[in-house]
């Protein structure tokens, strides 16, 4: 069963990702991205990361992507024109990318071939309780620092996007 669910949702994720890249209208790309995030959330559940899965849905799919869609609608971004290609990125980038993937796959096969299997339920340490516990004891400092980071981001976003006072 694990394999079945994995394959289904991996396929959805991949197809949605390809869609993100290939669609011409940004709104279509955004919706595909939401699909990717949803399927990844399911994969998290399969991996026993309940808290993270919920956070993924709430934060990523619920807040960040909504922000994206707001901005797309605000800017009235239309479909992309077919104009001007950067040959550097295509001539060099695509082969580099393929090499990159090939290398990673190769190293993963070499290093993790016998690393154990993921069965649903064999890892229970991903509950909100355990994450919260770790977050407030061992990782308290990074937690507090990220609160500052969020504050900075809020201020930055407001300053950058406001209208100039005359």
């Amino acid at each position, binding site marked *: 069963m694990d394999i079945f669910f994995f394959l289904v949702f991996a396929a959805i994720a991949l197809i949605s990702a390809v869609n993100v890249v290939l669609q011409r209208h940004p709104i279509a790309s955004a919706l595909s991205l939401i699909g990717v995030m949803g399927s990844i959330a399911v994969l998290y559940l399969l991996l026993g990361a309940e808290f*993270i899965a919920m956070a*993924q849905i709430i934060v990523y799919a619920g807040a960040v992507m909504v*922000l994206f869609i707001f901005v797309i609608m*605000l800017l009235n971004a239309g479909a992309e024109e077919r104009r001007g290609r950067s040959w550097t990125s295509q001539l060099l980038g*695509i082969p580099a990318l393929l090499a990159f*993937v090939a290398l990673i796959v190769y190293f993963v096969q070499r290093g993790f071939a016998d690393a*154990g299997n*993921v069965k649903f339920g064999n890892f229970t*340490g991903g509950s909100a309780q355990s994450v919260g516990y770790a977050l407030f004891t061992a990782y308290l400092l990074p937690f507090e620092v990220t609160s500052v980071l969020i504050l900075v981001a809020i201020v930055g976003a407001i300053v950058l996007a406001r209208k100039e006072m005359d």
Partner: protein
Amino acid sequence: MPEALQALNNGVPISWYLVLSALLFALGVAGFLLRRNIITVFMCIELMLNAVNLSFVAFSNQHKQVAGHIFTFFVMVVAAAEAAVGLAIILTVFKNRATLNIDEISSLKN
């Protein structure tokens, strides 16, 4: 057949998760390199971050520790902050240059 079913019940090898993560990451990079609209490029960045998150959680499962989840949590926080600020920047750029074409924002040209 019972061996195949047995194999089926054994769970998913970690390496598959990692390969999936790599593929998603590669797709994100491809989108970054090929698309011209700034917002789409930004969305590909989010795709890359998600791929990395998947990788972290898979490792966390492998080592039966919660540290990977914590890291994923922080990556999500940073990604959200970055998305907010980045979109604010895109708004400013659009206000100044009235274009969303990434190739036209090249005033750092030599």
